[in-house]
């Protein structure tokens, strides 16, 4: 099947080439049948890449080790569930996933807009196919997922144990969906700039895709944080790692864009800003992929060691130059129709919120690239750690939370004192009451920034609750509906607005979790023997007994721990260090110790609750086993050399398994001191709950409106379009 896969990639390249030509020719000559043919090329690309993806997945499911990528990233013992996810653990599979997802999303938007944005769509099609051609070229010429070996190994290296986590099944496709969806508004913005059709039309057709990109990328980021928390054995969920930052930057920009397009739709303002934001988002989405695939962050020179660095750099340079050139050349057409009437208006608040979000994105960008910048300027790399990021992101995040409460309530154009009183009196009272209660009842005073955030989150939640209450009450009074029915109907009829409110509530809740868990966390890193205890905050952790589990794929040496509060047992935690075989060793190297020296993985003992999480990770040092391992290695190396028959091989394997098992069992029979990392963190669960609330809000905002509401929206859109056309003299 590999030749079929390689052929499909070549076919995909030809389709991209044809589609770009047909779209541009159709747009330049006005022969729309060519433009339609270009659009159909995208559908064909989706079909071809879907078949290619199915071939790759089938190779993983069949454990066809003649595929290099399967041999390097899977094995016969990899569970089926993870075999399905294994393609995107490789560079080659990731590139194909990029093209596949992009072709699907592009097909969807082009199908939905087939009768709209006639002039813009062909250029957007060409841009989208340009991206597809770029990634297909990489997958064809630099990192081919269908590359094969003449002699297939009997067994594969297996999936990296760290990726054996349910969220890894969803996290990469979510991130890649987010990245690919963000290229869609980028492509339509380019089309709008080329054609000069810079009204609300291109925004109207791509808004939902921008929102979907925001949603998918956001879910991907939260899932990544969850994976880090439960899988990586350090107890954190965010480390300002360049890979995390790569996803955060476009997410911040698209968040700003989703808000600022409302001002363009309502008042015809911020056209330059919106075009620039969406172009920046598209560039950052590609930059994100570049960051994690090129190796540039290892060193300014390292991207030369990667085959992908050069092509990515060329693409990004082209995108930046093209975007700047187009915006500058169209600056006269992008002039705002109205000006800001007052600083006390929704437009001003949205603008400020946009500036803060972009400042956040810039700070993250600077911190991520600073090692390269400093290396280029001073010749020595400088690294910036979490304290540097916190210095900028914490105050900016506080402002974002505050504005997410103010923005939805303040009046358009100009807010009057009466409007401000009516909108904010109750939420401000709730925020003040929250601050007072926390000051009196807890030790929150020792962390003023966290206290401020709790008060601001209370303010946002009160703002959202007040809006829902007022809206539902008014609707209930008019339609004679009960309050819960009126609330559901209210949200159903104005999904964008109320979905957005829910997102704001979710983000506020998420920030409460972040502030509490980072400010009031207790950590104890200690060495314990069975029966010994360690204090973590107001809890006592006791190492009760060791555990051992020997399986074909891994050896698990663990610990059962009891947690006490005021002398009363409140929880039992089970944590383990899992050792996978070292698959890089030759057949005669370390025949016994290889089972202990491969990739280790920590199984975290976690008890998550609404008020606090108890978290434990054990690291069992193998030093006490070392002399026994060395002795057995020598013994079995000699036995290996004497293997001549199949019967002897079977006896050897049996004896080897018995020895490995007995060595592992020593941990249970004569346990030695093990290293523990013990954490008690308040309100971590609210980070995930906040993420779920925000995702639910995003989904509500994304969901198509009922027919009647859509008709109203379309009528408003038509009237606005008519006005724009009349104003432009078309």
């Amino acid at each position, binding site marked *: 099947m590999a030749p079929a896969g390689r052929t499909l990639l070549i076919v995909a390249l030809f389709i991209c080439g044809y589609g770009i030509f047909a779209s541009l020719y159709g747009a330049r000559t006005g022969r729309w049948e060519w433009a339609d043919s270009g659009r159909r090329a995208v559908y064909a690309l989706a079909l071809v890449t879907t078949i290619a993806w199915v071939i790759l997945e089938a190779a993983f499911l069949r454990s066809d080790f003649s595929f290099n990528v399967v041999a390097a990233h899977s094995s016969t013992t990899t569970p089926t569930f993870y075999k399905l996810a294994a393609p995107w*653990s490789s*560079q080659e599979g990731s590139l194909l996933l990029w093209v596949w997802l992009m072709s699907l999303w592009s097909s969807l938007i082009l199908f939905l807009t087939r009768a709209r944005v006639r002039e813009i769509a062909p250029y957007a099609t060409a841009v989208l196919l340009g991206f597809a051609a770029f990634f297909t070229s990489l997958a064809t010429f630099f*990192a081919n997922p269908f590359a094969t070996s003449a002699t297939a190994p009997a067994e594969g290296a297996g999936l*990296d144990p*760290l*990726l054996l986590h349910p969220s890894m099944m969803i996290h990469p496709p979510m991130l890649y969906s987010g990245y690919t969806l963000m290229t869609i508004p980028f492509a339509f913005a380019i089309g709008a700039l080329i054609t000069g059709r810079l009204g609300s039309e291109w925004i109207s057709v791509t808004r939902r895709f921008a929102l979907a990109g925001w949603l998918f990328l956001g879910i991907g980021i939260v899932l990544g944080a969850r994976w880090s928390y439960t*899988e*990586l*054995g*350090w107890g954190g969920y965010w*480390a300002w*790692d360049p*890979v995390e930052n790569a996803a955060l930057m476009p997410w911040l920009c698209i968040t700003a864009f989703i808000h600022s397009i409302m001002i363009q739709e309502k008042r015809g303002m911020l056209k330059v800003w919106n075009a620039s934001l969406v172009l920046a988002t598209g560039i950052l989405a590609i930059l994100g992929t570049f960051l*994690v*695939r*090129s*190796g540039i962050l*290892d*060193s300014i*020179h*390292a991207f030369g*060691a*990667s*085959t992908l660095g050069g092509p990515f750099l060329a693409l990004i340079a082209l995108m930046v130059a093209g975007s700047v050139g187009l915006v500058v050349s169209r600056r006269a057409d992008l002039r705002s129709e109205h*000006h*800001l009437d007052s*600083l006390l208006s929704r437009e001003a608040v949205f603008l400020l919120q946009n*500036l803060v979000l972009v*400042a956040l994105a*810039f*700070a993250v960008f*600077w*911190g991520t690239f*600073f*090692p390269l910048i*400093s290396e280029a300027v001073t010749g*020595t*790399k*400088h*690294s*910036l*750690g979490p*304290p*540097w990021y916190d*210095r*900028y992101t914490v105050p900016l995040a506080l402002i974002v939370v505050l504005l997410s409460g103010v923005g939805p309530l303040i009046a358009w154009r100009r807010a009057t004192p009466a409007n401000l009183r009516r909108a904010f009196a109750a939420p401000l009272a709730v925020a003040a009451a929250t601050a007072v209660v926390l000051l009196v009842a807890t030790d929150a005073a020792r962390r003023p920034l966290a206290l401020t955030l709790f008060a601001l989150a209370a303010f946002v939640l009160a703002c959202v609750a007040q809006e829902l209450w007022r809206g539902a009450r008014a609707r209930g009074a008019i339609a004679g509906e009960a309050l819960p029915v009126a609330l559901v109907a209210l949200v159903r009829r104005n999904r964008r607005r109320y979905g957005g409110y829910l997102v704001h509530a979710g983000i506020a809740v998420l920030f409460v979790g972040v502030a509490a868990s980072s400010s009031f966390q207790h950590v104890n*890193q200690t*060495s314990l023997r069975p029966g010994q205890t360690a204090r973590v905050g107001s809890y006592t952790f006791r190492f009760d007994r060791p555990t051992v589990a020997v399986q074909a794929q891994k050896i698990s040496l663990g610990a059962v721990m009891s947690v006490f509060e005021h002398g009363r047992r409140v929880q039992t935690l089970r944590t383990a260090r899992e050792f996978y075989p070292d698959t890089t060793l030759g057949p005669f190297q370390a025949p016994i110790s290889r089972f202990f020296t491969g*990739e*280790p*993985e*920590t199984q975290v003992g976690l008890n998550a609750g609404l008020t606090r999480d108890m978290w434990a990770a054990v*690291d069992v*040092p*193998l*030093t006490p086993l070392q002399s026994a391992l060395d002795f057995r290695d020598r013994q079995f190396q000699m036995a290996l050399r004497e293997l001549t028959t199949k019967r002897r091989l079977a006896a050897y394997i049996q004896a080897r398994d018995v020895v490995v098992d007995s060595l592992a069992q020593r941990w249970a029979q004569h346990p030695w*001191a093990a*290293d523990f*990392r013990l954490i008690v963190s308040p309100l971590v669960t609210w980070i995930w709950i906040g993420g779920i609330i925000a995702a639910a809000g995003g989904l509500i905002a994304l969901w198509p409106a009922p027919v009647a509401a859509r008709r109203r929206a379309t009528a408003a859109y038509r009237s606005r379009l008519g006005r724009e056309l009349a104003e432009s003299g078309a």
Partner: protein
Amino acid sequence: MDPSRKRAIRLTVALTAALLLASALIYTSFTAGRDELTAGQLLRLARPGRSYLLAGTVLNGSIRRQGDVTWFRVRDPKLSVSVPVRYTGIVPDPFAAGRGVVVAVQERAPGSPTFVGEQNSLTTKCPSKYQAASGAAS
């Protein structure tokens, strides 16, 4: 006030704020950033008592555990030199031979060949990401 003058003032204030923020960002990044050195640079430049971030790849076969102490060598990606590190603290799961790491280190003693890693400062690069071209020196 004349609306155009008002707009000009607002623009000036916004640009000044942006400029101040950018200046603060640049200044603090140069003052708060820590030198990140390769093994070769560390051997040349290290001064006793000063802390450095050592970046490189873990040398194959160099990892050794003794109680809560982990010994390993960090290799220079460009030169064929490596430095030994004695480290205590959290060892992230992705830590393995051949993987990219960053660790804060100090010279153990003047002239000592071993560097002492600051507790819990070891970070490992994500294993699923960058792959160098075959034959590339990494």
